């Protein structure tokens, strides 16, 4: 194997191997960037005021549309609006079928409580009703009460559009859904998700921290500790839907049914706790996220230097005092990491909720001004399930798509933010571990 340095054989194998490895990383990164771009662009794009384009068609029809994309076959796909006039929400036309495309300055866009948005022109704005002109010239009367917002997108400058975009995002986050969830906002889903993760955290953090303390501080390396570790790993690996099955069978039907018989027998057979609700969903989620908290807390505990424990014990502290004043404060970043990761998991997990009490549309929030303020037995809405329910069960999925993208982008942004925070926190824990 003695080769002079200058005449080394060309190392094809090494080069190809490392290039393929680098290529794998490249593929993963590329896929991720493409996915994030798609979601964030489409999600944000749902609120961007687009120009209203007037199409004069070869067959004499006139439309006022928002052009969405040019398809692979060259045809243009555009949103029609004016649901009371057309059967379709979208118009797909080949460019040669469109005689002229213009952007009329006085084109009006109305958001309405019925029939989706309206594209057309304003004739007069009355107290009781508005007179409007449809793109093809026909006059329409609309009760003023149905009008939510009017805008002239073709007259907007970039700044105005930005303003409208921000207002749109704000309304999306704070409004109630309208028209079978296909329009409006996601406020109840946001509230439901928040309540779910709060209840879940209250349950899972103490339990997870105790288990981690046991593994790291109290137990010696016995068969039982190995059993606990296997159990933690298994809890992490059990499919989430199985937790849902357990939640439905044990919590909803078992515990809930027993509670109903004991305390709410008056209202039987209609269930109080014997049906899915935010409490059972939270307990199920807590079970599901135990391993996340345990693993992160353990890491945090290990980051506390041994000397500090010994110092505390040497000063006469009991084990609990040492935990309370030395270890837990030192492990706080770890615990926080675990909590954040658990929250982010619960915010995005949908399958178990489908069995334990999530609904596509809840008439009331699970928190209200009415006694007892917190309605733990109520069914609730959830951002993740909202995506499924609107994207797959809405009466008109195609028309609701922009809102599904917006909801996805919102959920993705939330989860990414949580995970990024957790990753940074954990990096800090690991640095102090390494420095120890």
């Amino acid at each position, binding site marked *: 194997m003695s080769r002079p340095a200058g005449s080394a054989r060309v190392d094809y194998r090494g080069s190809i191997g490392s290039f393929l490895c680098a*290529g794998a990383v490249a593929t*993963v990164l590329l896929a991720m960037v493409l*996915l994030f771009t798609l979601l964030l662009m489409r999600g944000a794009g749902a609120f961007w005021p687009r120009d209203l384009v007037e199409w004069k068609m070869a067959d004499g029809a006139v439309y006022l549309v928002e052009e969405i994309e040019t398809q692979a076959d060259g045809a243009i796909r555009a949103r029609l609006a004016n649901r009371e006039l057309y059967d379709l929400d979208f118009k797909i036309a080949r460019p040669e079928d469109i005689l002229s495309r213009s952007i009329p300055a006085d084109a009006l866009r109305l958001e309405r409580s019925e029939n989706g948005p309206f594209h057309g022109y304003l004739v007069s704005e009355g107290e009781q009703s508005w007179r409007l002109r449809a793109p093809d010239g026909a006059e329409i009367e609309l009760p003023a009460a149905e009008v939510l917002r009017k805008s002239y997108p073709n007259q907007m400058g970039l700044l105005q559009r930005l303003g409208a975009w921000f207002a749109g995002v704000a309304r999306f986050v704070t409004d109630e859904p309208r028209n079978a969830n296909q329009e409006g906002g996601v406020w109840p889903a946001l509230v439901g998700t928040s309540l779910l993760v709060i209840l879940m955290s209250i349950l899972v953090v103490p339990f997870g921290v105790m288990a981690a303390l046991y593994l790291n501080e109290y137990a010696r390396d016995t068969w039982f500790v190995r059993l606990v570790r296997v*159990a933690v790993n*298994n809890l992490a690996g059990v499919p989430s839907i*199985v937790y849902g099955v357990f939640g439905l069978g044990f919590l909803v039907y078992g515990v809930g049914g027993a509670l109903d018989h004991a305390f709410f027998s008056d209202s039987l057979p209609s269930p109080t706790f014997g049906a899915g609700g935010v409490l059972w969903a939270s307990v199920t989620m807590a079970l599901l996220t135990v391993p996340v908290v345990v693993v992160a807390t353990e890491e945090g505990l290990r980051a506390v230097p041994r000397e500090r424990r010994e110092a505390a014990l040497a000063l006469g502290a009991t*084990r609990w005092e040492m935990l309370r004043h030395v270890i837990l404060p030192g492990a706080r970043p770890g615990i926080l990491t675990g909590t954040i990761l658990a929250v982010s998991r619960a915010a995005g997990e949908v399958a178990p909720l489908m069995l334990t009490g999530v609904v596509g549309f809840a008439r009331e929030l699970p928190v209200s001004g009415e006694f007892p303020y917190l309605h733990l037995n109520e069914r609730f809405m959830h951002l993740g399930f909202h995506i499924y329910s609107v994207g797959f069960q809405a009466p008109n999925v195609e028309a609701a798509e922009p809102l599904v993208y917006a909801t996805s982008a919102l959920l993705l942004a939330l989860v990414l933010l949580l995970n990024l925070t957790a990753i940074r926190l954990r990096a800090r824990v690991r640095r102090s571990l390494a420095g120890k």
Partner: protein
Amino acid sequence: MGPADYNRKRATVDKAVALLVRLGGIGVVLAVFFIAAFLVMEAAPLAAGPAVASRGVLVEAGRALAAGVEPFAEASWSLRQDGHLQLRDLRDGELIEDRELFRLREDERVAAVRVAADQGSLAIATTAGRLAAAPLGFVVDYGDELERSHRLEGTAPRWLIEEGAGPLSAFDHQVDGPTVWAVAAAADGAVELIRGKLKIDKLSGEERISFRKLVLEPQGEVRDLALLESGAFVAGFADGSVRAWQASRDFKALEERGAGAPGAPILQIRALIGSGSALVARDDGSVERWMLKLQESGHPVLGQAAAMPERLPGLRGVVPSSRQRLFFALGQDEVWIGQATAGEYLARIPLPARVRGLAVAPREDHLLLLAEDGSLELRAIDLGFPAVTAHTLFGKVLYEGAAEPAWTWQSTGGTDAYEPKTSFVPLILGTLKGTFWALLPSIPLALLGALFTARFLRGRAREIVKPAVELLAGIPSVILGFVAALYLAPAIQDRMLSIMLLPIALVLVTVALASVWARLPLRKRRILHEGLAPFVLAGVYFGIAWAVIGAGPWIEQTLFGTSLRMWLPEGLGLPFEQRNAAVVGLAMGFTVTPLIFTLAEDAFRNVPETLAEASQALGATPWQTAVRVIVPPAMPGVVAAVMLGLGRAVGETMIVLMATGNTPITGMNLFQGFRALSANLAVELPEAPHGGSLYRTLFLSALMLFAFTFVINTLAEVVRVRGRKAL
């Protein structure tokens, strides 16, 4: 408070906390154990066989031709030879009501009684050869203390044959909404099919029934008859042959619908609930299930569906259940409970010797035994969940209406009489299919990427790649499912071929680039720092992907003359679905790849740096070091990572729920969807009645998922711990 007290308090708190923390540790183990135990507990009753009380209530009822009980099993009815229907309270034996249901002529007696499978009506044949049918209904009255009392519903019988020509050798009837069907065989073997349609005159409100009849010339001695759906009937002959006929659509002629070969003489034929099939009992004690199977010609043909495995000595008759495809076969001194779908006997119950007939309560919670001496005995039974057996879950079953035995999952149907089809096989195959296509791209991507990140990336580049992959792992699967179903699936349906060619193209380009790179003088290689390589390659890949995918429709057009999705069904006869396994594989890759990546990266990094340094000091290239020095000791961790990825893919729910059509098929076609165990749970469990057969079947499938992932996770942990010890 003295210091001693204070210290005692401290010690107590310390002990309490220690206890609490231990409970936390034990709690985790208990949680896993309890979830498993609960799933087992909910699924276990499926395995339990039927149980029958060894004795019950005895009531004296006098000699009756037929008897039965009302839905609460608190009163029994019996029909006597003189046409009287009696209702008797089973709690105290009192006669509640005695009604002359069928008005007979002088010297005429009831010769035989037949109760419909759904127990909603009964028919009689008289000694004069006349035939009548009457609804069988009961009314419940609630007293002050909510105690129940029962009476007969006021109903009028309808004569289907008003003038007889001698005794009938066999007959059957069926009430199907406003239509009454009857079939009767005369002693000479001629068979008459009768259809009565009830019409309500719109002006007068008067009910009128119009009868039409078709006659079949004598074919032999008819032993028994049973009506099936839509004017078809099965006849059993003394030579043991079974033949079927059906009225033509215009009710002008009887068309033959096939025949079975001769065998042991026919004892009885009884239609099962829903009238989709009939039980044929023979004198030799065998019981078979026959049904009309739809042929390609469009005409159904009589065929045998299943034969019960054992012959019952001294078989005297079969009584079909009124709720499911279950029957009770009365032997000499025993009752056998048979499952007609699977074709197996579930239980054998010994009886007192003097029993000559039996009836099943409408709710299937009681058996009524008719003794020779006219007494009735009501016994409680618990059938358990007889519709689900190992055979129906895993074996091929010939269901009603099908032509071939098949693995089918279709748990619920439109009517109560629906035959549930609960085979796990299509669901398991679906899960395997999804898992396979998810792991196929994920494993190489994740392992190669992890090796690169662990051994070749340094400094800032690694600080970007690792967290990025962790972020990717955190994407909610509902988002991936949504993107896969509503963006990816429609976007790539015309570019399927290029999606499959893309990996090959990328590998080829990478190999080409690497070969050029290897020949570059070292000095020139400095232009590209190793940490930058993935980012540069990502740019190159984007360009190639854009080109290959953009050219997709053109490639398919050139190769097939049409798109792949049109060519597959037209050219190869393979179905193509927009939401198919390829789309699921791609989408699941987004969750499985980062999981395997992160775990494998940890495994590669845990190999001590000293090994790598020693290897390179001896002159090995970085690549040789990675492959020969780093990979072997990291292997256990890598295997564990792949296993955990497998577990994740098996349990993934939302992506397979959204990105497939959820059709439970058994094919392995890449361009079709499937239904996975997990998605099936999400779809069906919310609708399954609590505690019912389907509910428990679904719990069993959840238990299977749990058990599978439990084994995978435990094995992975064992492998990983062993590997770590070896280091």
